């Protein structure tokens, strides 16, 4: 599977995202507390641009009147119908068994490795001393 260099690590600090197009597919790259994730920019429900949605937490409750917000910034809420997905797994919050959004393997590679190839990096100039976010697709 070809590896695509999509960003420098400086470009994607924790809590941010970047939308890229790889081989015709729009993909959202997310940095959650230093870990990188990639999801296809298409909600499995009705096809909205999912990766432009709001980053939210997971609202949990054991009984009426008690609430706790967990994992802030780790859930992605679709801009249309508000379906929420776990960015770390692509799983749907409302239907985790059957509905998930396609995710891709993301790694961080040093520039020294990237310049050796075989990486696809049409739009990102690579320097040996940098670190790069790489998606397998």
């Amino acid at each position, binding site marked *: 599977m070809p590896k695509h260099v999509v960003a420098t690590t400086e470009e994607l600090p924790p809590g941010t995202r970047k939308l890229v197009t790889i081989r015709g597919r729009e993909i959202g790259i997310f940095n959650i507390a230093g870990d990188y994730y990639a999801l296809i920019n298409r909600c*499995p429900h*009705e096809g*909205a641009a999912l990766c432009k949605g709001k980053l939210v937490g997971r609202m949990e409750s054991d009984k009426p009147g008690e609430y706790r917000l967990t994992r802030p910034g780790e859930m992605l809420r679709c801009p*249309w*119908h508000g379906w929420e997905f776990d960015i770390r797994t692509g799983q749907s919050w409302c239907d985790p068994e059957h509905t998930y959004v396609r995710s891709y393997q993301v790694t961080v590679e040093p520039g020294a490795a990237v310049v050796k190839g075989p990486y696809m990096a049409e739009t990102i100039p690579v320097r040996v001393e940098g670190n790069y976010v790489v998606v397998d697709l």
Partner: protein
Amino acid sequence: MNVITPQTQPDVSAQSLTGYVDCDVHPYFKNPAELDAFLPTRWREHRKEYGARSRSALAYMPQYPRLSPQNGMRMDAFPPDGSLPGSDLPFMREQLIDLFGMAHGILLPLLGRGGDERNLEYGAAMCTAVNDWMLAYWCDPEPRLKASIQINVEHAESAIAEIEKRAGDRRFAQVQINQRGLEPLGRHRYRKILQAAAANGFPIAMHLGGTSGHASTAGGWPSYYHEEHHAYVQSMEGIVTSLVVEGVFEQIPNLKVALVEGGFAWIPALTWRLDKHYRRLRTEVPHLKRLPSEYIRDHIWVTTQPVEEPERAGDMLSTLEWIGWDRVMFSTDYPHWDQDDPRYAFKVQIPEQQKRMLFRENALAFYNLA
């Protein structure tokens, strides 16, 4: 690729939708002052000094906060200039009209709120203003869009005058009536308005939403928007039951009714129940000459959004068959947060002929459009 299992693959063959009719599109203003130009000075001053007094429990805010900004908007529908979703015709063309090759879109404005204004004279003036605004801002620059006549049913005289004023103007497709009124719509006090609509060739449409001032469920005010949203369905059931049992369709045999955004899967169950009780209780309502289900079948149409999503996707086909394939009309509800995309709204393959009816032909016939 994205996966939804089982048997819920999106109906991608709906690419053949060019020429579909959208029965629920919401236009907004970029600036509330747009309406002032269509109000007489007397009411423009009133609007400035006193503002609206709708029949709702809270003033200037929705009864139930929604999950997205501006009272429930699709998050990617804000035009480039940052104005309200639905307020920019070129952007609406880009996201809806041209994107899906819409043949006609039926506008249901939810602004001005003349229909539920307590000051009836101001309400009537606001209805007229919104009607003129729709023509100037939407229907004239984009003839694919058709307007819905705004009226306040609590002011019968002005409501009838407004219907008659717009009669014969093909830019108007129907008469829009609030879903929640002071009394059930079949009550005698509203009959002349319904007669005027039918006599002038207009269907009537009820779009979900608003409050009448009464609690929104028969058991009182609900706590959550989730509950409130379902209470809209109960309102629709109440309207249908009232129109049928009060004998409205006996008296106005050419009245056509569209229920917009109130769901549709409940219709078969309601007809079964009404028919059962009719057999036992018909001496109480001797003015009914036919089964309730027959009146419903002949007079009630429904729009689709938000499409119900049964656990077994195939059950949708049975439901639509029970209602009648010729009684269901597609709608997006653009630009609201729960809008449907015509390509993916149905999670089941609809046969080609039925698809043509649902996405196009039923609405063309209902609204007498070419």
